[in-house]
């Protein structure tokens, strides 16, 4: 007679071993995913923070050979460009998402969905060339408008897709409940549906904005870069990523340090903005999940 107990035990030893191996593989994969992020973050901090001082935030770039100087114009420029892009990209993205989920069930909606997917796969440099052809050539100069347009265009697919997905998660019976109260359709969409989905949509917008803030390629052909303060939106404007790019490909050590500092500032900015929006929206919408 087989010992029933030992049979289970033997069997369970095998299963436990399998479980351990699989668990190890999962943890290993997770580590592999996080490792580059941690590495980038620490390396940039170590390299960047040491070159960082107050001057970096307040001074204009200095010519080669002179020490000191900063990236004040590029920091302001990035804020302006991302702001311009957001003004254009966020409303268009959200409205397109609302249209696709709430107001259209026909072929046209499917076409929009497909085009959005394709658009999100287009390399950002192509977007930059597109903005160059559409705005820079007719205007005959590089401008912040063109840069903002390119960044906005980059944000649209992400925001549309996220809005669409988040609106789909809002139960259909909430729409019915609101309509049954005699609330008009447009108010139902804005005050009930959009508000219920707002937590997820805000996260999506953040992702899109953060991505746009770090984009270099679409700005090379559009806002171009500038070593001075540029207050006018139809003239070339500096931005952190382009400044980093210019500094990084230069042969000067001083400029390399500046590029590291710029990278550190860029990462910190994205990190801080995400953190603030997360904290600000967490309490308000946590119950809606």
């Amino acid at each position: 007679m087989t010992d029933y107990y030992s049979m289970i035990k033997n069997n369970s030893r095998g299963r436990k071993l399998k479980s351990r191996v699989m668990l190890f593989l999962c943890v290993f994969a997770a580590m592999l995913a996080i490792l580059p992020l941690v590495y980038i973050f620490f390396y940039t901090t170590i390299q960047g923070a040491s070159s960082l001082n107050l001057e970096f935030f307040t001074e204009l770039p200095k010519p080669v050979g002179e020490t000191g100087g900063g990236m004040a114009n590029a920091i302001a420029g990035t804020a302006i460009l991302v702001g311009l892009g957001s003004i254009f990209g966020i409303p268009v993205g959200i409205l397109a998402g609302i249209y696709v989920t709430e107001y259209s069930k026909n072929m046209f909606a499917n076409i929009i969905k497909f085009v959005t997917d394709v658009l999100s796969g287009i390399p950002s440099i192509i977007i930059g060339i597109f903005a160059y052809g559409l705005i820079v050539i007719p205007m005959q100069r590089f401008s912040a408008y063109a840069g903002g347009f390119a960044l906005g265009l980059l944000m649209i697919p992400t925001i549309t897709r996220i809005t669409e997905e988040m609106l789909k998660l809002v139960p259909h019976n909430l729409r019915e409940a609101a309509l049954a109260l005699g609330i008009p359709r447009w108010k139902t969409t804005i005050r009930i549906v959009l508000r219920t989905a707002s937590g997820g949509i805000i996260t999506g917008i953040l992702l899109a904005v953060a991505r746009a803030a770090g984009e270099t390629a679409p700005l090379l052909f559009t806002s171009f870069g500038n070593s001075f303060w540029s207050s006018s939106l139809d003239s070339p404007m500096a931005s952190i990523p382009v400044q980093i790019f210019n500094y990084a490909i230069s042969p000067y050590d001083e400029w390399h340090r500046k590029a590291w500092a710029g990278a550190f500032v860029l990462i910190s900015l994205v990190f801080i903005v995400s953190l603030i929006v997360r904290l600000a929206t967490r309490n308000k919408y946590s119950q809606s999940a």
Partner: protein
Amino acid sequence: MTEEKEILTVSPGVQTDKTEFNPEEAYEKSKFALETENLTVTFNGREAISDINSKFRKHTITAIIGPSGCGKSTFLRSLNFMHDLTPGAEVSGSIKIHGKDISEYDMTDVRRRVGMVFQKPNPFPTMTIYDNVAAGLTLHKRQSRKILDETVERSLRLAGLWEETKDRLKVSAMALSGGQQQRLCIARTLAINPEIVLFDEPTSALDPISTSKIEETLYMLKKDYTIIIVTHNMQQASRLSDYTSFFYLGKLIEHSKTRTVFTAPKNKLTEEYVIGKFG
């Protein structure tokens, strides 16, 4: 004829139109809150209900019974334009509210006159208890705080939820239990002061105690509202309603007094359904 007179005398809220003395018309006007004529709903060309002719007296509770898929909910939802959202749905025939055709009203106006409570409790998750009840008012137009406060209290009292929630009106509606949420939805519907309230199996997702509380509420509401309730629960229909409609395969088979339907139905199908031979 005698039956109709008897009903007239027991219904307390009859209004007679004095300015335009036409006894026939006044009589007609006072009697029915809602009428349907040849009401047909199709989904992508397939008939879900066909040629429903039905009349609902003021200040009564009418139960709609019938096996699953017989068109009960479809019928109920057509009464306040709820098929508007469903792609491929088409509604034909006529619906009259107080003798006036539904097409003469604005769509949102119809929905404000004909309120609806759904099967699953569906409070707005981003809103507090107070805001949920007030939603129908605040999203319609700006209201003074005083009117809102009064309406919220009155509606919650009517729905039997005031005592449980008066100290936590600013708490999220999601903090309530399922039964409480359903009563909140009833309060939300009553807050816009509809004339007719439709209930689509309002207690099928609830426990017996919550169910009995909601039934009590419905019974009390009868004196101010006209109620139509879809239910799968035969006992609920018999203890709650004045009239019962039996639907089968998209047709209205029988519509008479609840007592008649449950004790001496005229149609054989009704009898078989009521005694549990099918369904």
